[in-house]
């Protein structure tokens, strides 16, 4: 009887050592609370729910403690585990281009084609990326790390993940979480900058209605855009190539099924995998560091610089434009990418000052220009530092 009792006790001990309760540390609990907070904000306030729920749940999965020495091959960093295989898409950077394919298939470039000068607003917002890059270097980050932090200001999650996976994979979790958090915090971060840098008169500027765009223009735009990208910034090809390919699927009019797949089921599947894997990768031991806190701070700074640069550039640009051709500086924020959240913010803030001045369609121009410009920035950074 005694033998049986000890046998049972020993096995219970072994079982206990396998459980999460025996292996839990304070870091795991903090990260689990972090994940639950993400899920709460996504459901309660609808902050980027399509991303924050997979990321939040991924944080829960990634921070369930278990006995690593048991070699169960279940952890994301354990060679050959299911999570490890799915994580390759993030690590090797092939989820972001697939997301760009979907984005291309859902993006209408008409707003940009009809008012091409707005493309320069997208370029101006890239000051955020390079500004944060310089500040990060000053704070002691390595050049590759600083570039990965700076790209947060591009407000483009897939681009940030793509660049970081190439330049500083060890910062992937912090950069991705930071990028997506700030995209969700657009309504908090951008309006104060927009109000601070504009006068009431400027906020009331009415822009000329956009011209109609021919179907031929819409078809040639992605082809010409691809060739321009390929020849000028080949390192941006994985992202911009897929973006323009997706757009051609949409605009050609003869590949509707492919376009619908790219912007529907395919982007949904990749978003689920990308969000979940980014969340799982944020394990307490690698994520809860002083560097992560600094990355969050610098990410916010990058985002704010980008927003301010966009608004100030429009004001500067207006000095050279005729009175009836001026741009409302409230659309300057939309150059940070984050489609369509930042364009929507231009509309919301604009309507506060003139309830009949709809800026959404005008803001979509710099918004899609921001997508192109942030991918070009990533390509340039990759070219300089990889």
């Amino acid at each position: 009887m005694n033998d049986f009792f000890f046998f049972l006790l020993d096995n219970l001990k072994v079982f206990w050592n396998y459980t999460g309760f025996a292996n839990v540390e304070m870091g795991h609990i903090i990260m689990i609370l972090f994940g639950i907070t993400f899920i709460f904000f996504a459901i309660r306030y609808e902050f980027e729910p399509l991303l924050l729920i997979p990321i939040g749940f991924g944080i829960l999965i990634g921070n369930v403690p278990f006995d690593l020495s048991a070699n169960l091959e279940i952890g994301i960093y354990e060679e050959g585990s299911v999570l490890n295989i799915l994580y390759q898409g993030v690590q090797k950077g092939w989820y972001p281009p697939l997301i760009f394919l979907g984005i291309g298939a859902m993006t209408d470039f008409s707003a940009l084609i009809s008012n091409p000068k707005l493309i320069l607003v997208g370029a101006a917002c890239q000051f955020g990326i390079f500004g944060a890059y310089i500040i990060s270097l000053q704070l002691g980050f390595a050049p590759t790390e600083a570039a990965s932090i700076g790209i947060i200001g591009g407000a483009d999650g897939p681009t940030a993940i793509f660049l970081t996976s190439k330049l500083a994979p060890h910062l992937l979790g912090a950069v991705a979480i930071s990028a997506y958090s700030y995209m969700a915090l657009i309504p908090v971060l951008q309006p104060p900058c927009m109000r601070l840098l504009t006068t009431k008169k400027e906020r009331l500027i009415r822009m000329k209605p956009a011209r109609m765009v021919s179907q031929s223009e819409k078809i040639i735009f992605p082809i010409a855009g691809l060739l321009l990208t390929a020849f000028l910034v080949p390192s941006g090809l994985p992202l911009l190539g897929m973006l323009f390919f997706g757009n051609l699927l949409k605009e050609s009019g003869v590949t509707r099924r492919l376009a619908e797949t790219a912007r529907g089921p395919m982007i949904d599947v990749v978003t689920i995998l990308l969000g979940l894997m980014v969340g799982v990768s944020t394990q307490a031991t690698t994520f809860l560091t002083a560097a992560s806190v600094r990355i969050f701070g610098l990410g916010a700074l990058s985002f704010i610089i980008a927003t301010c640069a966009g608004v100030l550039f429009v004001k500067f640009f207006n000095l050279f434009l005729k009175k009836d051709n001026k741009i409302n500086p409230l659309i300057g924020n939309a150059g940070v990418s984050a489609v369509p959240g930042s364009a929507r913010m231009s509309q919301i803030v604009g309507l506060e000052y003139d309830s009949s001045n709809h800026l959404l369609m005008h803001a979509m121009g710099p918004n899609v220009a921001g997508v192109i410009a942030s991918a070009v920035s990533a390509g340039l950074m990759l070219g300089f530092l990889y």
Partner: protein
Amino acid sequence: MSPTVQTALLISGIGMIGIFIFMALFYLLILALDKLLPHKEEAKADEK
């Protein structure tokens, strides 16, 4: 100024100029598209 910051400023300067040149070329591309392929309705209206 440390060499790291000098390099960073150089990369940032070249990067921003590069982006503006790239986007300016896109701007010209779109202008060219507009000239070559105007919207059909506008073209018809012009003919009348």
